[in-house]
Protein backbone atom coordinates (compact mmCIF):
# COMPACT_ATOMS: atom_id res chain seq x y z
CA UNK A 1 0.00 0.00 0.00
CA UNK A 2 1.07 3.49 -0.84
CA UNK A 3 4.15 1.77 -2.09
CA UNK A 4 6.96 3.30 -4.01
CA UNK A 5 7.32 1.17 -7.08
CA UNK A 6 9.70 1.09 -9.98
CA UNK A 7 6.88 -0.09 -12.19
CA UNK A 8 5.94 2.39 -14.85
CA UNK A 9 2.17 2.35 -14.59
CA UNK A 10 1.60 5.44 -16.67
CA UNK A 11 3.74 6.73 -19.50
CA UNK A 12 3.14 9.92 -21.50
CA UNK A 13 -0.41 10.05 -20.19
CA UNK A 14 -1.22 6.51 -21.32
CA UNK A 15 -1.85 3.72 -18.84
CA UNK A 16 -0.84 0.06 -19.04
CA UNK A 17 -4.11 -0.93 -20.66
CA UNK A 18 -4.00 1.98 -23.09
CA UNK A 19 -6.50 4.20 -21.28
CA UNK A 20 -6.17 7.91 -20.60
CA UNK A 21 -6.06 8.94 -16.90
CA UNK A 22 -9.73 9.98 -16.94
CA UNK A 23 -11.09 6.99 -18.85
CA UNK A 24 -13.32 4.20 -17.52
CA UNK A 25 -12.87 0.60 -18.50
CA UNK A 26 -15.55 -0.78 -20.77
CA UNK A 27 -18.77 -1.44 -18.86
CA UNK A 28 -21.54 -3.76 -20.03
CA UNK A 29 -24.74 -4.09 -18.02
CA UNK A 30 -27.67 -6.45 -18.60
CA UNK A 31 -30.75 -6.26 -16.38
CA UNK A 32 -33.11 -9.13 -15.57
CA UNK A 33 -30.86 -12.10 -16.27
CA UNK A 34 -32.01 -14.43 -13.47
CA UNK A 35 -35.50 -15.96 -13.39
CA UNK A 36 -35.60 -16.97 -9.75
CA UNK A 37 -34.64 -13.61 -8.24
CA UNK A 38 -37.14 -10.75 -8.01
CA UNK A 39 -34.61 -8.56 -9.78
CA UNK A 40 -31.17 -9.21 -11.20
CA UNK A 41 -28.27 -7.83 -13.15
CA UNK A 42 -25.12 -9.07 -14.83
CA UNK A 43 -22.27 -6.64 -15.14
CA UNK A 44 -18.95 -6.76 -16.93
CA UNK A 45 -16.55 -4.00 -16.08
CA UNK A 46 -13.20 -4.50 -17.76
CA UNK A 47 -12.34 -8.01 -16.61
CA UNK A 48 -14.69 -7.92 -13.62
CA UNK A 49 -17.71 -10.16 -13.93
CA UNK A 50 -20.47 -9.80 -11.37
CA UNK A 51 -24.01 -11.09 -10.83
CA UNK A 52 -26.41 -9.30 -8.52
CA UNK A 53 -29.79 -10.64 -7.39
CA UNK A 54 -32.45 -8.96 -5.29
CA UNK A 55 -35.15 -10.65 -3.20
CA UNK A 56 -37.92 -8.89 -1.39
CA UNK A 57 -39.28 -6.92 0.28
CA UNK A 58 -39.98 -9.92 2.48
CA UNK A 59 -40.23 -10.88 6.12
CA UNK A 60 -36.99 -10.08 7.93
CA UNK A 61 -35.04 -12.94 9.47
CA UNK A 62 -33.60 -13.06 12.09
CA UNK A 63 -36.55 -11.34 13.74
CA UNK A 64 -34.43 -9.25 16.13
CA UNK A 65 -33.06 -7.37 13.14
CA UNK A 66 -36.53 -6.13 12.14
CA UNK A 67 -37.24 -2.43 12.39
CA UNK A 68 -40.81 -1.58 13.42
CA UNK A 69 -40.99 1.50 11.22
CA UNK A 70 -38.98 0.60 8.14
CA UNK A 71 -37.33 -2.10 6.07
CA UNK A 72 -33.68 -3.02 6.29
CA UNK A 73 -31.39 -3.75 3.39
CA UNK A 74 -29.36 -6.92 3.83
CA UNK A 75 -26.60 -6.86 1.27
CA UNK A 76 -24.20 -9.75 0.87
CA UNK A 77 -21.01 -9.53 -1.15
CA UNK A 78 -19.27 -12.79 -1.95
CA UNK A 79 -16.38 -13.75 -4.16
CA UNK A 80 -16.33 -17.05 -5.98
CA UNK A 81 -13.35 -19.28 -5.11
CA UNK A 82 -12.24 -19.06 -8.76
CA UNK A 83 -12.64 -15.29 -9.04
CA UNK A 84 -9.00 -14.55 -8.20
CA UNK A 85 -5.58 -16.00 -9.06
CA UNK A 86 -4.99 -17.74 -5.75
CA UNK A 87 -8.07 -19.75 -4.85
CA UNK A 88 -10.14 -17.74 -2.43
CA UNK A 89 -11.46 -19.66 0.55
CA UNK A 90 -15.24 -19.49 0.14
CA UNK A 91 -17.44 -17.87 2.75
CA UNK A 92 -17.52 -14.65 4.69
CA UNK A 93 -14.26 -13.01 5.64
CA UNK A 94 -13.23 -9.64 7.06
CA UNK A 95 -13.21 -7.93 3.71
CA UNK A 96 -16.51 -9.23 2.39
CA UNK A 97 -18.34 -8.51 5.67
CA UNK A 98 -17.06 -4.95 5.51
CA UNK A 99 -18.21 -4.49 1.93
CA UNK A 100 -21.59 -6.09 2.67
CA UNK A 101 -22.07 -3.70 5.58
CA UNK A 102 -21.16 -0.48 3.77
CA UNK A 103 -23.24 -1.43 0.74
CA UNK A 104 -26.27 -2.09 2.98
CA UNK A 105 -25.78 1.31 4.59
CA UNK A 106 -25.52 3.03 1.21
CA UNK A 107 -28.67 1.42 -0.19
CA UNK A 108 -30.74 2.25 2.90
CA UNK A 109 -30.21 5.88 1.89
CA UNK A 110 -31.91 5.51 -1.49
CA UNK A 111 -34.38 2.64 -1.11
CA UNK A 112 -37.72 3.89 0.27
CA UNK A 113 -37.41 1.70 3.34
CA UNK A 114 -40.22 3.48 5.21
CA UNK A 115 -42.76 1.92 2.83
CA UNK A 116 -42.10 -1.60 4.11
CA UNK A 117 -42.04 -1.75 7.91
CA UNK A 118 -40.53 -4.93 9.43
CA UNK A 119 -39.41 -6.14 6.01
CA UNK A 120 -36.02 -6.99 4.62
CA UNK A 121 -34.64 -6.45 1.15
CA UNK A 122 -31.90 -8.91 0.31
CA UNK A 123 -29.24 -7.90 -2.17
CA UNK A 124 -26.81 -10.63 -3.15
CA UNK A 125 -23.70 -9.78 -5.12
CA UNK A 126 -21.53 -12.57 -6.48
CA UNK A 127 -18.15 -11.74 -7.92
CA UNK A 128 -17.41 -14.34 -10.59
CA UNK A 129 -14.22 -12.75 -11.80
CA UNK A 130 -12.29 -10.04 -9.97
CA UNK A 131 -9.94 -7.51 -11.49
CA UNK A 132 -9.87 -4.57 -9.04
CA UNK A 133 -12.78 -2.29 -8.30
CA UNK A 134 -15.23 -5.07 -7.46
CA UNK A 135 -16.92 -3.27 -4.59
CA UNK A 136 -17.89 -0.43 -6.92
CA UNK A 137 -18.84 -2.81 -9.69
CA UNK A 138 -20.91 -4.93 -7.30
CA UNK A 139 -22.72 -1.85 -6.00
CA UNK A 140 -23.49 -0.66 -9.50
CA UNK A 141 -24.85 -4.09 -10.41
CA UNK A 142 -26.90 -4.16 -7.21
CA UNK A 143 -28.43 -0.75 -8.04
CA UNK A 144 -29.62 -2.00 -11.40
CA UNK A 145 -30.91 -5.23 -9.83
CA UNK A 146 -32.88 -3.22 -7.24
CA UNK A 147 -34.47 -1.13 -9.98
CA UNK A 148 -35.17 -4.32 -11.93
CA UNK A 149 -36.94 -5.81 -8.88
CA UNK A 150 -39.37 -2.88 -8.90
CA UNK A 151 -38.30 -1.72 -5.46
CA UNK A 152 -39.15 1.96 -4.98
CA UNK A 153 -36.09 4.14 -4.57
CA UNK A 154 -35.13 7.78 -4.86
CA UNK A 155 -32.37 7.16 -7.37
CA UNK A 156 -29.92 4.54 -8.53
CA UNK A 157 -26.40 4.73 -7.16
CA UNK A 158 -23.44 4.41 -9.47
CA UNK A 159 -20.11 3.65 -7.79
CA UNK A 160 -16.67 4.20 -9.22
CA UNK A 161 -13.12 4.46 -7.89
CA UNK A 162 -10.30 6.84 -8.60
CA UNK A 163 -6.75 6.65 -7.33
CA UNK A 164 -3.15 7.64 -7.74
CA UNK A 165 -0.43 5.87 -9.70
CA UNK A 166 3.06 7.27 -10.30
CA UNK A 167 1.84 10.55 -8.70
CA UNK A 168 -0.91 10.95 -11.30
CA UNK A 169 -4.56 10.92 -10.27
CA UNK A 170 -6.41 8.40 -12.44
CA UNK A 171 -9.96 7.07 -12.79
CA UNK A 172 -11.02 3.45 -12.29
CA UNK A 173 -7.88 1.54 -11.27
CA UNK A 174 -7.18 -1.80 -12.88
CA UNK A 175 -5.51 -4.76 -11.16
CA UNK A 176 -1.92 -3.61 -11.65
CA UNK A 177 -2.68 -0.03 -10.69
CA UNK A 178 -4.56 -1.20 -7.61
CA UNK A 179 -1.70 -3.49 -6.51
CA UNK A 180 1.20 -1.18 -7.23
CA UNK A 181 -0.44 2.25 -7.12
CA UNK A 182 -0.30 4.80 -4.33
CA UNK A 183 -3.96 5.35 -3.50
CA UNK A 184 -7.45 4.00 -4.12
CA UNK A 185 -10.64 5.97 -3.50
CA UNK A 186 -13.97 4.19 -4.09
CA UNK A 187 -16.91 6.57 -4.25
CA UNK A 188 -20.67 6.16 -4.62
CA UNK A 189 -23.02 9.08 -5.11
CA UNK A 190 -26.70 9.82 -5.58
CA UNK A 191 -26.59 11.47 -9.01
CA UNK A 192 -29.69 13.66 -8.60
CA UNK A 193 -28.46 15.34 -5.41
CA UNK A 194 -24.73 14.71 -5.49
CA UNK A 195 -24.86 13.20 -1.99
CA UNK A 196 -22.03 10.82 -1.14
CA UNK A 197 -23.22 7.43 0.14
CA UNK A 198 -19.91 5.62 0.12
CA UNK A 199 -16.39 6.95 0.39
CA UNK A 200 -13.26 5.06 1.33
CA UNK A 201 -9.60 5.83 0.91
CA UNK A 202 -6.56 3.56 0.94
CA UNK A 203 -3.13 5.15 0.62
CA UNK A 204 -1.91 8.71 0.58
CA UNK A 205 -3.30 11.76 -1.22
CA UNK A 206 -2.48 15.43 -0.70
CA UNK A 207 -5.53 17.69 -0.13
CA UNK A 208 -5.28 18.90 -3.74
CA UNK A 209 -4.99 15.38 -5.08
CA UNK A 210 -7.95 14.35 -2.94
CA UNK A 211 -10.08 17.08 -4.50
CA UNK A 212 -8.95 16.03 -7.95
CA UNK A 213 -9.64 12.37 -7.22
CA UNK A 214 -13.12 13.21 -5.89
CA UNK A 215 -13.96 15.23 -9.01
CA UNK A 216 -12.68 12.46 -11.24
CA UNK A 217 -14.61 9.73 -9.41
CA UNK A 218 -17.77 11.88 -9.44
CA UNK A 219 -17.56 12.36 -13.20
CA UNK A 220 -16.89 8.62 -13.55
CA UNK A 221 -20.05 7.93 -11.55
CA UNK A 222 -22.08 10.20 -13.81
CA UNK A 223 -20.78 8.41 -16.92
CA UNK A 224 -21.63 5.11 -15.32
CA UNK A 225 -25.12 6.35 -14.42
CA UNK A 226 -25.80 6.86 -18.14
CA UNK A 227 -24.72 3.30 -18.89
CA UNK A 228 -27.01 1.99 -16.12
CA UNK A 229 -29.94 3.96 -17.49
CA UNK A 230 -29.28 2.72 -21.01
CA UNK A 231 -29.16 -0.88 -19.76
CA UNK A 232 -32.61 -0.61 -18.14
CA UNK A 233 -33.93 1.28 -21.14
CA UNK A 234 -32.70 -1.50 -23.40
CA UNK A 235 -34.29 -4.23 -21.28
CA UNK A 236 -37.67 -2.57 -20.78
CA UNK A 237 -37.97 0.80 -22.51
CA UNK A 238 -37.97 -0.49 -26.06
CA UNK A 239 -41.24 -2.41 -25.61
CA UNK A 240 -44.35 -0.44 -26.44
Amino acid sequence: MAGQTDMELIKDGVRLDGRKPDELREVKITAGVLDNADGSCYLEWGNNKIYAGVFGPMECHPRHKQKADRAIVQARYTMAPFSVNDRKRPGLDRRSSEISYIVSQAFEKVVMVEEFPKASIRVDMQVVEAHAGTRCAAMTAASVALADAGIPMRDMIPACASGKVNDVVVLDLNKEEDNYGQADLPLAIIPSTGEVVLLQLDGHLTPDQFEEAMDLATSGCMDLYKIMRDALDKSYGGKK
Partner: protein
Amino acid sequence: MSEESKNNKKSENSKGFVLPGDLLETKSKPGKGIFRKDGRVYSSVVGYSNDRSGYMNVNAIKGRYNPKVGDKIVAICAETGPSVWRMDIGAAFNSTLHHSESGWKVPFGDTARFLSIGDAVWAEVFMVDAAGSHQITLKKDDCRKLYSGTVVKVEPTAVPRVIGKQGSMITAIREKTNTRIQIGQNGFIWIDGKGEDISKAQKAMETIDREASSEGLTKKIEKLLEK
Protein backbone atom coordinates in the same frame (compact mmCIF):
# COMPACT_ATOMS: atom_id res chain seq x y z
CA MET B 1 -28.38 21.41 -22.52
CA SER B 2 -28.39 19.41 -25.71
CA GLU B 3 -28.01 16.30 -23.57
CA GLU B 4 -31.11 17.28 -21.63
CA SER B 5 -33.31 17.78 -24.67
CA LYS B 6 -32.11 14.50 -26.10
CA ASN B 7 -33.18 12.71 -22.94
CA ASN B 8 -36.64 14.27 -23.05
CA LYS B 9 -37.14 13.20 -26.62
CA LYS B 10 -36.14 9.66 -25.77
CA SER B 11 -38.69 9.30 -23.00
CA GLU B 12 -41.40 10.57 -25.35
CA ASN B 13 -40.49 7.96 -27.90
CA SER B 14 -40.75 5.08 -25.47
CA LYS B 15 -44.21 6.10 -24.18
CA GLY B 16 -43.26 7.72 -20.88
CA PHE B 17 -40.74 5.12 -19.84
CA VAL B 18 -39.17 6.34 -16.60
CA LEU B 19 -36.50 5.22 -14.16
CA PRO B 20 -36.15 5.84 -10.41
CA GLY B 21 -35.38 9.49 -9.68
CA ASP B 22 -36.76 10.87 -12.96
CA LEU B 23 -38.59 14.19 -12.71
CA LEU B 24 -42.20 13.97 -13.87
CA GLU B 25 -43.69 17.08 -15.45
CA THR B 26 -47.31 17.09 -14.38
CA LYS B 27 -50.07 19.13 -12.80
CA SER B 28 -51.99 16.03 -11.65
CA LYS B 29 -52.26 14.85 -8.06
CA PRO B 30 -49.56 12.45 -6.89
CA GLY B 31 -50.54 8.79 -7.29
CA LYS B 32 -48.52 5.59 -6.98
CA GLY B 33 -44.95 4.75 -7.94
CA ILE B 34 -43.78 8.28 -7.22
CA PHE B 35 -42.27 10.37 -4.44
CA ARG B 36 -42.31 14.09 -3.76
CA LYS B 37 -39.37 16.33 -3.00
CA ASP B 38 -39.42 20.13 -2.78
CA GLY B 39 -42.92 20.22 -4.24
CA ARG B 40 -41.96 18.29 -7.36
CA VAL B 41 -42.86 14.77 -8.35
CA TYR B 42 -40.32 12.08 -9.19
CA SER B 43 -40.65 8.48 -10.28
CA SER B 44 -39.57 5.90 -7.70
CA VAL B 45 -39.69 2.78 -9.89
CA VAL B 46 -38.91 1.52 -13.37
CA GLY B 47 -42.13 1.78 -15.35
CA TYR B 48 -44.45 3.79 -17.54
CA SER B 49 -45.74 7.17 -16.39
CA ASN B 50 -49.36 8.11 -16.95
CA ASP B 51 -51.46 11.03 -15.66
CA ARG B 52 -54.65 10.55 -17.67
CA SER B 53 -56.67 9.51 -14.61
CA GLY B 54 -56.02 12.84 -12.90
CA TYR B 55 -53.34 11.23 -10.77
CA MET B 56 -49.68 11.03 -11.64
CA ASN B 57 -49.00 7.30 -11.59
CA VAL B 58 -45.99 5.27 -12.56
CA ASN B 59 -46.98 1.70 -13.37
CA ALA B 60 -44.04 -0.45 -12.35
CA ILE B 61 -42.85 -3.18 -14.67
CA LYS B 62 -42.17 -5.58 -11.83
CA GLY B 63 -42.67 -5.72 -8.10
CA ARG B 64 -44.32 -7.62 -5.30
CA TYR B 65 -48.07 -7.63 -4.83
CA ASN B 66 -49.37 -4.80 -2.66
CA PRO B 67 -52.57 -6.09 -1.01
CA LYS B 68 -55.70 -3.91 -1.07
CA VAL B 69 -58.94 -4.51 0.77
CA GLY B 70 -61.48 -6.13 -1.53
CA ASP B 71 -58.97 -7.71 -3.91
CA LYS B 72 -59.83 -11.22 -5.04
CA ILE B 73 -56.74 -13.39 -4.87
CA VAL B 74 -55.46 -16.93 -5.09
CA ALA B 75 -53.56 -17.86 -1.92
CA ILE B 76 -51.42 -20.88 -1.13
CA CYS B 77 -51.13 -22.28 2.37
CA ALA B 78 -47.59 -21.86 3.68
CA GLU B 79 -47.93 -22.70 7.36
CA THR B 80 -50.59 -23.99 9.74
CA GLY B 81 -51.09 -22.72 13.30
CA PRO B 82 -53.50 -23.91 15.99
CA SER B 83 -56.24 -21.54 14.84
CA VAL B 84 -54.88 -19.78 11.74
CA TRP B 85 -53.35 -20.54 8.40
CA ARG B 86 -50.45 -18.48 7.06
CA MET B 87 -51.04 -17.98 3.36
CA ASP B 88 -48.57 -17.07 0.64
CA ILE B 89 -50.13 -14.38 -1.54
CA GLY B 90 -46.96 -13.11 -3.23
CA ALA B 91 -46.75 -10.01 -1.03
CA ALA B 92 -43.87 -8.99 1.23
CA PHE B 93 -45.45 -10.89 4.12
CA ASN B 94 -47.56 -14.02 4.40
CA SER B 95 -51.24 -13.30 4.96
CA THR B 96 -53.29 -14.65 7.84
CA LEU B 97 -56.45 -16.71 7.31
CA HIS B 98 -58.15 -17.02 10.69
CA HIS B 99 -60.32 -20.10 11.27
CA SER B 100 -63.33 -17.87 11.98
CA GLU B 101 -62.93 -16.46 8.45
CA SER B 102 -62.82 -19.87 6.81
CA GLY B 103 -66.50 -20.84 6.99
CA TRP B 104 -65.55 -24.26 8.37
CA LYS B 105 -66.10 -25.40 11.96
CA VAL B 106 -62.46 -25.98 12.88
CA PRO B 107 -61.64 -27.68 16.21
CA PHE B 108 -58.69 -26.00 17.95
CA GLY B 109 -55.40 -27.34 16.61
CA ASP B 110 -57.01 -29.19 13.76
CA THR B 111 -56.46 -26.64 10.98
CA ALA B 112 -54.39 -28.92 8.78
CA ARG B 113 -57.38 -31.23 8.26
CA PHE B 114 -59.10 -28.47 6.26
CA LEU B 115 -56.16 -26.77 4.57
CA SER B 116 -52.67 -28.21 4.58
CA ILE B 117 -49.44 -26.78 3.22
CA GLY B 118 -49.57 -26.30 -0.55
CA ASP B 119 -53.38 -26.12 -0.78
CA ALA B 120 -54.81 -23.20 -2.73
CA VAL B 121 -57.86 -21.06 -2.00
CA TRP B 122 -59.79 -18.37 -3.84
CA ALA B 123 -60.06 -15.62 -1.23
CA GLU B 124 -60.61 -11.93 -0.62
CA VAL B 125 -58.37 -9.47 1.23
CA PHE B 126 -60.50 -8.00 4.01
CA MET B 127 -58.00 -6.20 6.22
CA VAL B 128 -54.68 -4.43 5.62
CA ASP B 129 -52.99 -2.44 8.37
CA ALA B 130 -50.32 0.24 8.29
CA ALA B 131 -47.66 -2.12 9.58
CA GLY B 132 -47.97 -4.14 6.38
CA SER B 133 -49.78 -7.19 7.80
CA HIS B 134 -53.00 -8.35 6.18
CA GLN B 135 -55.81 -10.87 6.56
CA ILE B 136 -57.86 -12.75 4.01
CA THR B 137 -61.30 -14.32 4.23
CA LEU B 138 -63.20 -17.19 2.61
CA LYS B 139 -66.60 -15.90 3.74
CA LYS B 140 -67.32 -13.76 0.69
CA ASP B 141 -69.18 -14.43 -2.57
CA ASP B 142 -67.55 -17.28 -4.44
CA CYS B 143 -64.53 -17.76 -2.17
CA ARG B 144 -63.61 -21.39 -1.65
CA LYS B 145 -60.90 -23.98 -1.47
CA LEU B 146 -59.51 -24.85 -4.89
CA TYR B 147 -59.37 -28.60 -5.51
CA SER B 148 -57.29 -30.11 -8.34
CA GLY B 149 -55.84 -27.85 -11.03
CA THR B 150 -52.61 -25.92 -10.82
CA VAL B 151 -51.45 -22.45 -9.84
CA VAL B 152 -49.34 -20.34 -12.22
CA LYS B 153 -47.54 -17.25 -10.97
CA VAL B 154 -47.16 -14.12 -13.09
CA GLU B 155 -46.06 -10.60 -12.18
CA PRO B 156 -48.94 -8.80 -10.39
CA THR B 157 -48.27 -5.91 -12.78
CA ALA B 158 -49.15 -8.20 -15.71
CA VAL B 159 -52.60 -9.11 -14.38
CA PRO B 160 -54.49 -6.44 -16.40
CA ARG B 161 -52.88 -7.85 -19.55
CA VAL B 162 -53.87 -11.42 -18.65
CA ILE B 163 -57.48 -10.24 -18.29
CA GLY B 164 -57.44 -7.97 -21.35
CA LYS B 165 -59.93 -5.26 -22.31
CA GLN B 166 -63.36 -6.30 -20.97
CA GLY B 167 -61.85 -9.69 -20.32
CA SER B 168 -61.05 -10.32 -23.99
CA MET B 169 -57.79 -12.12 -23.32
CA ILE B 170 -59.03 -14.39 -20.58
CA THR B 171 -62.21 -15.24 -22.51
CA ALA B 172 -60.07 -16.24 -25.48
CA ILE B 173 -57.83 -18.44 -23.35
CA ARG B 174 -60.79 -20.07 -21.57
CA GLU B 175 -62.57 -20.86 -24.82
CA LYS B 176 -59.54 -22.02 -26.78
CA THR B 177 -58.15 -24.28 -24.05
CA ASN B 178 -61.43 -25.39 -22.47
CA THR B 179 -60.18 -24.73 -18.93
CA ARG B 180 -61.52 -23.15 -15.76
CA ILE B 181 -59.40 -20.16 -14.74
CA GLN B 182 -59.41 -17.87 -11.72
CA ILE B 183 -57.11 -14.85 -11.89
CA GLY B 184 -56.01 -13.40 -8.56
CA GLN B 185 -55.08 -9.73 -8.38
CA ASN B 186 -51.81 -10.94 -6.81
CA GLY B 187 -50.68 -12.59 -10.04
CA PHE B 188 -51.47 -16.14 -8.89
CA ILE B 189 -53.63 -17.83 -11.50
CA TRP B 190 -55.52 -21.06 -10.87
CA ILE B 191 -56.10 -23.24 -13.93
CA ASP B 192 -58.13 -26.45 -13.97
CA GLY B 193 -58.98 -28.83 -16.81
CA LYS B 194 -57.34 -31.64 -18.74
CA GLY B 195 -53.57 -31.97 -18.41
CA GLU B 196 -52.77 -30.84 -21.95
CA ASP B 197 -55.21 -27.96 -21.76
CA ILE B 198 -53.66 -26.74 -18.51
CA SER B 199 -50.15 -26.75 -19.96
CA LYS B 200 -51.46 -24.88 -23.01
CA ALA B 201 -53.09 -22.21 -20.86
CA GLN B 202 -49.99 -22.10 -18.68
CA LYS B 203 -47.82 -21.44 -21.70
CA ALA B 204 -50.13 -18.61 -22.73
CA MET B 205 -49.89 -17.05 -19.25
CA GLU B 206 -46.10 -17.25 -19.29
CA THR B 207 -45.99 -15.59 -22.70
CA ILE B 208 -48.22 -12.76 -21.51
CA ASP B 209 -46.06 -12.30 -18.41
CA ARG B 210 -42.90 -12.13 -20.50
CA GLU B 211 -44.30 -9.72 -23.06
CA ALA B 212 -46.64 -7.78 -20.80
CA SER B 213 -45.61 -4.40 -22.18
CA SER B 214 -45.95 -5.18 -25.89
CA GLU B 215 -48.92 -4.45 -28.15
CA GLY B 216 -51.27 -6.81 -29.97
CA LEU B 217 -50.96 -9.50 -27.33
CA THR B 218 -54.48 -10.94 -27.63
CA LYS B 219 -53.98 -11.72 -31.31
CA LYS B 220 -50.59 -13.26 -30.61
CA ILE B 221 -52.00 -15.47 -27.87
CA GLU B 222 -54.94 -16.56 -30.04
CA LYS B 223 -52.45 -17.59 -32.69
CA LEU B 224 -50.36 -19.47 -30.13
CA LEU B 225 -53.39 -21.37 -28.83
CA GLU B 226 -54.57 -22.38 -32.28
CA LYS B 227 -51.38 -24.33 -32.94
